[in-house]
């Protein structure tokens, strides 16, 4: 089913800003409050960065970002054709360790988990991944679109 807001774009670091702007505009149009929009922006940026850097290894590839509502929540669907990867399985970093000693892995995923209410992942039938980020807090009078 077509989503009301959909962006197909090459998965490159240079396109991160465009993806963030697209998601911010869509979230605002669907009635998400400003602070929550910033949270979604952060989670989407981290997720797409992972696709670009780890999923496609910097070689580029297809990326689709869609925004819709699920009940009273905003839903962002991020689809790629990269090898299957479930970010929820990434170990959380040790936040008690000194700053200099912390491993790089897992920090982006931690930010995703702290910025949205739910993270879902599935491997698409044709291969590739779909990551769904759910952010609660839509205004009550906003009904699902599409």
């Amino acid at each position: 089913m077509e989503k009301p807001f959909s962006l197909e774009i090459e998965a490159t670091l240079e396109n991160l800003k465009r993806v963030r702007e697209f998601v911010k505009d869509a979230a605002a149009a669907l009635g998400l409050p400003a602070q929550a929009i910033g949270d979604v922006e952060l989670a989407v940026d981290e997720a797409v960065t992972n696709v670009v850097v780890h999923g496609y290894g910097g070689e580029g590839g297809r990326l689709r970002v869609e925004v819709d509502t699920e009940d009273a929540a905003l839903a962002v669907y991020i689809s790629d054709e990269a090898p299957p990867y479930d970010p929820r399985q990434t170990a959380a970093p040790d936040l008690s360790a000194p700053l200099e000693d912390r491993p790089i892995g897992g920090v982006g995923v931690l930010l995703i988990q702290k910025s949205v209410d739910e993270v879902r992942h599935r491997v698409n039938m044709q291969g590739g991944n779909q990551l769904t980020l759910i952010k609660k807090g839509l205004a009550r009078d906003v009904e699902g679109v599409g």
Partner: protein
Amino acid sequence: MRWSGDGRLRQGIASMSSMSTDLQIDVSEQQGSVPVTLLRLDGPLDASTHTALESKVAELVEQGTRNLILDLSRVSYMGSAGFFAIQTIIKLLRSDAESGHGGAVEEVSHVKLLAPSDEVMKVIRRLGVEDYLDIRTDLGAAVASF
């Protein structure tokens, strides 16, 4: 997942190493009890721009910079890549201090963060790293603190 618009997406694949010009970096010198280099950042600090900051600081350290203030008040967006850039810069200046003292651990901070924007503070708080960073709100006090 079904893809549409085949062909157009493959155009314009950008290199991972190319630098975005979205982040403006302004360099100036301040004089306290020691020379201090001030970097004012303006724009997003994400996975597409962080290497520009790291390269600039590496260049400055090469030229003799030993004390650094990062003015983050105009950073419009920061993700984990931006945080890692700051972490890298802290390590870079710390290790330089160590080499000047025969390998002894130098505890004095050589990097101060000035007036981080709300977007930057959100990430710092979510990562729980406030206590590991030297955050200042006033430029004069930051310069005097070295």
